[in-house]
């Protein structure tokens, strides 16, 4: 049990490495991936159970204590995100088990499973990292494998999107590494807690170096998580990937930069000191711009996947907005939205994947009249749309409640307008789709038969069900995240 924190990364890594050795046949690779993801889910759930009682699990890799060795730490935030992310992963893997055969060539198939597992390892590594350089390494694993699961599709647009993503990731990586180097230069520490402890002294002697390091780290991680003006790579990358990849990229991978910045803001750089800088205001402004402009872009899209991708830009802005308020309630809401959006957006991408594989079209017009032939998919899509708008009984409502309350609590009532406008705009681009799916006239005669292989349909329904459950009974995550927010703010 003591080793659970490290198993979060070691299990998927082992699975991924074993794929080219044992699983050169796609079905065997799939089973290997499924097994690994199930194990990870079990580990994460176990960790959640342990951290749920207020415990924080520390693990010294190689038995070297912190300033010398690397510590892996699972707090309530890490355990919770790891659990939900692993659940999303499980659903996506189940879905992909049927869909990759249609979307990928035979040679790419077994590598795809390996890359998916590597990405999971990267994600879990970032969630549990407590060492700045370790965080960087796992961020790079995640970024590189995220690009890779786009370019597995042998198509020109996927390649170009992956290249664009890769180049900007490299820029971000360079910035982050330089930031790490600057921080190390003036503190001599890499462990997050020790860095935080050493920072006040360093701030006396080298204030500008610290500022530069902060700027580099923030821009690097913001680029990786597509904060508004740095989002340019996202719509291409997320829309041209195979649908399971899009689900993971939009649902999970963009959250990593956010998690990293959360650690930086609240563990390394004292947030009370950050308040004196214009940084929170800037992040808030960028988040607000992302919310509004992203939604306007989304409305202009005729391609379903691009629309969802722009919607991700909106939601990332939303989360950053909540973080930058630096308020306990808003922080709870923002972290809750990390979970909610992970579930929602991956579900929506899988829905759209089903629709595309059924109709062969990816335009918004393809939705018209689909409710008759694809009832479950369209119902799930409806749940997703409702949650994006924040209608009660869906999980989106819960995070919206906390975000608005937090905005008021931090004394910025005017900023509530941003959140409400974002909801309204979401309604403006999601609801016409839902209405046309139920009441529109199909453009082309619809195929008879089931709406898709059960292995593709049921994961979507499962994700939608979890969204509803979290909307009706959000008590557990809220309690944990509220605790996390209090700890981070030092209350």
């Amino acid at each position: 049990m003591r080793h659970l924190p490290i198993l979060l990364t070691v299990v998927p890594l082992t699975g991924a490495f074993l794929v080219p050795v044992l699983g050169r046949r796609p079905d065997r690779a799939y089973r290997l991936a499924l097994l690994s993801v199930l194990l990870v889910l079990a580990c994460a759930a176990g960790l959640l159970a342990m951290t749920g009682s207020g415990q924080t699990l520390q693990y010294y890799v190689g038995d070297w204590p912190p300033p010398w060795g690397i510590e892996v730490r699972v707090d309530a935030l890490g355990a919770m995100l790891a659990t939900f992310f692993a659940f999303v992963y499980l659903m996506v893997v189940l879905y992909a088990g049927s869909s990759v055969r249609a979307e990928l060539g035979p040679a790419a198939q077994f590598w795809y499973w390996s890359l998916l597992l590597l990405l999971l390892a990267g994600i879990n590594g970032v969630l549990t990292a407590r060492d700045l350089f370790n965080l960087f390494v796992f961020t790079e694993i995640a970024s590189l494998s995220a690009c890779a699961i786009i370019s597995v599709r042998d198509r020109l647009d996927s390649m170009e999107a992956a290249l664009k993503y890769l180049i900007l990731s490299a820029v971000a990586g360079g910035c982050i590494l330089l930031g790490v180097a600057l921080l190390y230069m003036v503190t001599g520490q890499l462990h997050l807690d020790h860095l935080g402890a050493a920072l006040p002294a360093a701030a006396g002697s080298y204030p500008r170096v610290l500022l530069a390091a902060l700027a580099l780290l923030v821009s690097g991680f913001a680029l990786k998580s597509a904060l508004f003006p740095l989002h340019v790579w996202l719509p291409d990358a997320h829309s041209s990937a195979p649908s399971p990849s899009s689900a993971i990229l939009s649902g999970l991978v963009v959250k990593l930069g956010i998690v990293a910045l959360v650690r930086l803001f609240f563990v390394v750089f004292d947030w009370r000191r950050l308040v004196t800088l214009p940084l929170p205001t800037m992040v808030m402004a960028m988040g607000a711009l992302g919310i509004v402009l992203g939604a306007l872009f989304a409305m202009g899209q005729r391609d379903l996947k691009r629309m969802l991708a722009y919607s991700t830009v909106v939601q990332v802005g939303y989360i950053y907005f909540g973080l930058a308020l630096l308020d306990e309630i808003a922080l709870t809401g923002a972290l809750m939205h990390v979970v909610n959006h992970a579930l929602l957006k991956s579900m929506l991408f899988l829905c759209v994947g089903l629709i595309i594989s059924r109709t062969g079209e990816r335009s918004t017009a393809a939705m018209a009249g689909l409710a008759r032939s694809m009832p479950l998919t369209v119902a799930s899509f409806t749940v997703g749309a409702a949650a994006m708008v924040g209608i009660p009984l869906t999980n989106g409502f819960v995070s919206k409640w906390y975000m608005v309350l937090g905005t008021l609590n931090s004394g910025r009532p005017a900023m509530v307008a941003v959140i409400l406008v974002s909801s309204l705009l979401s309604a403006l681009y999601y609801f016409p789709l839902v209405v046309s799916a139920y009441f529109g006239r199909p453009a082309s005669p619809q195929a008879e038969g089931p709406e898709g292989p059960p292995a593709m349909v049921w994961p979507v329904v499962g994700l939608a069900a979890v969204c509803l459950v979290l909307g009706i009974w959000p008590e557990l995550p809220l309690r944990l995240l509220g605790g996390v927010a209090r700890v981070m703010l030092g209350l």
Partner: protein
Amino acid sequence: MGMPLALFVRLNYMAAITLFLIGLHVLLGHPNLIKKVMGMNIMETGVFLFLVSIGYARHSAAPIMSPGGAESGLYANPLVSAIVLTGIVIAVSTTAYTLSLTIKLYEHCGTLDVNRLERLRR
């Protein structure tokens, strides 16, 4: 101590940062994909040089101990070397991947010019 002198005793850092910026400029500004890859490597080399410079102390030796030695001499900081090693490997992987994408795109479109690729796209 004026600004020029302050910069002079930190010449290594300046050089490293200059490399970083040159690389960044090429990576973002140059339309040729191969040049972009080069820019990426130059940028990363700049960071590595910077890291290695941090670790150097005047008159220090390479951090390899002699067997049986009990004296502790002055060695360069081994941690930055380890970081650089990791960084290099990450850079190599990224480069390999980027180059393979570039090759693939070149075979598809017969060009390495980003502007023309972008136009082909839409």
